[in-house]
């Protein structure tokens, strides 16, 4: 049953630009093929490089002879780990020194920790020559023991993925180091019954009275659930081009963030960031995997230096699988108590995350925090272990950890609703956060709280729009087909604070808005700056957004990831706009007399209230240059970041320079929320199922750009659905080799896997803790996309079919026949 076509939603009733659609400034270049991504650039004398990848999951190079390769005509240089700068300490924005992690990931290594890890790189006149040279390299590996499955290495005599151990150990005032964590044999007893063993955790926290919560529960469920490892699979592989000029390195690469990528490049190259120019105007997808660039971009940079020529490193799809990051799969278990009305009384959660061999992904920790917020248990214990394995490195993927936590929790909520004969929307609604909802463990006796939450309103709106009650009342079975409907809660962190806004009102009357946000396709790079035009009352057509090149004087900007940007940078844009407005008023008062408050800004003018003399923006910009000082950027605001100050100094004298740091008050942590509704149809004879309908209702605060928002709400929902509907990693356990290495091995949903008329809605209720009221949206829908599909499947098939994701047709057929879940319940990568 299709849901009624949602009437055109209207947003931004009190605004001219905010809440309205507009063609973004990057769109024309994209649609005509003029937009240049990293691989589209050409430089005279450009060499090409190829990588030699490890054939073993864990080993050591015991013999290496490059002579035959180096003797080949056309081979210009070979880069190995000996050419890499030593890991450098880094200094944060706040001046805190972070000691270098000597056991962290390097761009090249002689001790590979996963199959496909880059060992060395050859630069040659073309790729053919580089590939031939790699064939001529004489290399031998010593094989070392390897571990793929976290449970395998946690066993008392299990293999360690690294010589030093299988987990990161945190110690105060020193970088993390690799150590050993083994559980006792008796800890593994529950595994015999398909339940997750829960040995000594690395971390744990709790609040409330857990025992009382379970004792007073009408129903207690204890469920083990396994979530898949899924590659980010950005359509643009992490290709990069580098060359050197006058001691500076110029890097063309795809990255989510512009300004924030410099710090990583500086650390990896051990160079001052003022000597690095990053060009990244267009990026072919990130989803967290290119949040602040990637370490492999230094390979062409260092090769270019060594060969004294530009080097293009093109990454193939298979190479991308190995180095392109993935979401950590979880082996998890939750015990949850429910009152008769469905209200959760207690949650006891255990999460094991598969990390790959290198730097720790934060997923395991985030999973507990998100569950504590989204389901509001009055008592909760969370325990977690992040385990190292010889599988490709993990990194944050849209809603890192939060998604896995939601996917562990949602099937339990659906099962509880069935056992307590409750409506599924009702059980989600009664447990939803509202207002300044608390989350996470207590610190100094007090738990943290959210800025706001309107998830209950989202469920109300969604239930009506999806015609939930009608759908539930309809017959499920029709011939061999059975229909199911499911609903899911979802949320994630959605905003940071404290960054800078910067723009110049030029003497020609146009506004040059400096944007340090990356262009990964979310359109936040221009969307947030609509606030500048809105506040100043300037037509958008008079604004030019400058982005994607760190030599273009950009302001200090948040990482374009983790759903921060819309929140953080609308605040910064608002602060800069208020600074610009104040300066315009002051300039008018200096020019015509009176006080600044007697002047108003609007219609591309600053004018005396109630009529009288006025300056056009062009005239005001010329006056600003005459006045100098703070007006044209010669005196930057004292509190902006030093990175912004450098940019202001370069822009000084070009017009009225408006710049400010976001210092707006902010009580609580910002989150965004989504209520997701799904309908599936399963063919019981074939096990094949289709998603027939989907609706996501988003609570993201004020809507800035509806069409871009719809793309995020539905696009990130589908990314989540991929985890329910088929994506996973598979390894050969004997040799530790990766089997799922291309799109067709672990295929993201295609246009035929989703309904042709998906629905979305946004509440458009402003968040009270931010001036424009907008929060981020990239991550929050992901868990709901997966959770709603899983719950629709269990509605159709019952509780005895699956206890891990994805749910494939063989899972359905074999389990229905046996009357119980037939998939191996705990093993990773099946």
């Amino acid at each position, binding site marked *: 049953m299709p849901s009624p076509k949602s009437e055109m939603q209207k947003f931004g009733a009190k605004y001219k630009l905010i809440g309205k659609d507009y063609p*973004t400034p990057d*769109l*024309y270049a*994209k*649609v*005509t*093929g*003029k937009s240049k*991504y990293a*691989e*589209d650039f050409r430089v005279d004398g*450009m060499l090409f490089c190829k990588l030699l*990848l490890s*054939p073993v999951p864990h080993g050591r190079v015991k013999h290496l002879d490059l002579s035959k390769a180096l003797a080949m005509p056309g081979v210009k240089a070979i880069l190995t780990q000996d050419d890499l700068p030593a890991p450098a300490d880094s200094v944060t924005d706040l001046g805190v020194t972070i000691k270098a992690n000597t056991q962290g990931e390097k761009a090249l290594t002689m001790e590979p920790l996963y199959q496909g890890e880059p060992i060395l790189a050859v630069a040659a*006149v073309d*790729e*053919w020559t580089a*590939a031939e040279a*790699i*064939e001529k*390299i004489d*290399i031998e590996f010593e094989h070392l023991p390897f571990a793929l499955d976290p449970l395998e290495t946690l066993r008392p005599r299990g293999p360690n993925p690294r010589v030093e151990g299988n987990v990161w150990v945190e110690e105060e005032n020193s970088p993390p180091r690799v150590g050993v964590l083994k559980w006792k044999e008796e800890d593994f007893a529950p595994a015999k019954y398909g339940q997750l063993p829960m040995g000594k955790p690395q971390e744990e926290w709790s609040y409330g009275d857990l025992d009382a919560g379970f004792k007073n529960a009408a129903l207690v469920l204890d469920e083990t659930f396994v979530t898949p490892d899924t590659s980010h*699979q*950005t*359509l*643009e*592989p992490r290709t990069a081009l580098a060359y050197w000029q006058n001691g500076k390195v110029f890097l063309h690469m795809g990255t989510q963030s512009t300004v924030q990528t410099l710090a990583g490049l500086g650390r990896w190259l051990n160079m001052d960031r003022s000597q690095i120019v990053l060009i990244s105007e*267009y*990026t*072919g*997808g990130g*989803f967290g995997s290119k949040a602040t660039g990637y370490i492999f971009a230094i390979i062409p940079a260092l090769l270019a230096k060594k060969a004294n020529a530009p080097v293009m490193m*093109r990454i*193939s*799809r*298979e190479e991308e699988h190995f180095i392109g990051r993935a979401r950590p799969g979880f082996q998890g278990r939750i015990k949850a108590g429910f009152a008769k009305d469905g209200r959760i009384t207690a949650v006891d959660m255990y999460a094991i995350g598969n990390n790959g061999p290198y730097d720790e992904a934060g997923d395991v920790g985030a999973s507990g925090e998100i569950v504590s917020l989204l389901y509001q248990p009055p008592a909760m214990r969370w325990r977690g272990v992040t385990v190292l394995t010889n599988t490709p490195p993990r990194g944050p993927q849209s809603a890192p950890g939060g998604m896995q936590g939601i996917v562990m929790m949602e099937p339990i909520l659906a099962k509880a609703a069935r056992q307590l004969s409750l409506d599924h929307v009702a059980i989600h609604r009664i447990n939803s956060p509202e207002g300044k909802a608390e989350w996470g463990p207590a610190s100094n006796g007090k738990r943290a709280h959210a800025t706001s939450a309107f998830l209950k309103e989202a469920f109300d709106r969604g239930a009506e729009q999806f015609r939930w009650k009608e759908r539930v009342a309809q017959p499920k079975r029709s011939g061999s087909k059975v229909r199911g409907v499911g609903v899911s809660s979802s949320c994630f962190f959605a905003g940071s604070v404290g960054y800078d806004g910067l723009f110049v009102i030029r003497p020609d009357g146009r506004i040059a808005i400096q944007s340090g946000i990356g262009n990964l*396709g*979310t*359109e936040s790079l221009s969307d947030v700056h609509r606030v500048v035009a809105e506040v100043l009352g300037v037509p958008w057509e008079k604004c030019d957004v400058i982005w994607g090149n760190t030599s273009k004087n950009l302001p200090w900007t948040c990482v374009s990831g983790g759903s921060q940007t819309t929140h953080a940078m609308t605040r910064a844009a608002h602060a800069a706009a208020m600074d610009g407005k104040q300066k315009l008023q002051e300039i008018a008062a200096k020019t015509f007399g009176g006080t600044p408050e007697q002047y108003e800004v609007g219609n591309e003018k600053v004018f005396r209230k109630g009529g009288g003399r006025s300056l056009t923006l062009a005239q005001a910009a010329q006056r600003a240059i005459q006045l100098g000082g703070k007006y044209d950027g010669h005196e930057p605001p004292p509190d902006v970041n030093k990175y912004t100050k450098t940019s202001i100094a370069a822009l000084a004298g070009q017009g009225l320079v408006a710049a400010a740091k976001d210092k707006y008050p902010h009580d609580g942590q910002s989150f965004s929320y989504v209520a997701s509704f799904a309908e599936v149809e399963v063919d019981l004879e074939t096990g094949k199922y289709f998603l027939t309908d989907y609706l996501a209702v988003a609570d993201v605060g004020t809507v800035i*750009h509806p*069409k*871009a928002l*719809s*793309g995020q709400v*539905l*696009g*990130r929902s*589908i990314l989540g659905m991929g985890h329910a509907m088929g994506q996973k990693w598979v390894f050969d356990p004997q040799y530790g*080799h990766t089997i799922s290495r*291309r*799109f*067709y091995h672990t295929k*993201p*949903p*295609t*246009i*035929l896997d989703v309904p*042709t*008329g*998906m629905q979305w809605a946004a509440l458009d209720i402003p968040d009270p803790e931010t001036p424009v009221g907008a929060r981020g949206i990239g991550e929050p829908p992901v868990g709901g996309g997966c959770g709603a599909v899983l719950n629709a499947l269990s509605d159709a098939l019952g509780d005895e079919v699956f206890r891990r994701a994805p749910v494939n047709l063989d899972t359905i057929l074999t389990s229905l026949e046996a009357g119980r879940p037939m998939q191996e319940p705990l093993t990773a990568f099946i």
Partner: protein
Amino acid sequence: MKEEIPPSEREATSLRLSRRNFIKGVIGGGVAASSAHYLFRASSLLGESSAPGDRLLTLNVNGQLRRADVMKQETLAWTLRYKLGLTGTKLGCDRAECGACTVLIDDVPHYSCSVLTHTVRNKKVVTIEGLANPDGTLHPVQQGVIDEQGFQCAFCMSGFILSAVGYLKTHPNPTRAELAHGLSGNLCRCQDYDKILTAMMRGAENLRKVSRA
């Protein structure tokens, strides 16, 4: 000789050649030390004389006759991107999985990563750069993207647009479900399918208006 081959057989020949080329690539690639796919001679790019085995071909691309030194194993995607400077055609997988490299060959969408360049002699190739009018007026399908803010990162965009343009030539008035089938050879990892489909439907509508006018 090639001119006498009927179109259906030309297609068959090109398929056979492609497959052989890719089997070769698969053998060379794989697990171990290197991956022998993703190769090409950059000779003409580097301004050197053509490498042995190269052959000077004349190709009809975007209505222009273009000459390029082409290796016999060279794919159309390489020639377009590295010999003719048409970088709007993207490589997402180089193995006929994602559709980012889709171009029109005699009005039919093809994965240019899986077509050998020498098989398109005497055919008309259209890439994203050739869709708009020389006066800058966008193709109605391109305009549909602007109207609906279609796509996110847009790395898949040129492939989707050319698939849509090809499909609409034979199915000018599709339903959403029909057009989805027409576009199902293209992957969007931003998973922006709903908005893409809306933009392509708008493109179809724009196209019908232009055709009627």
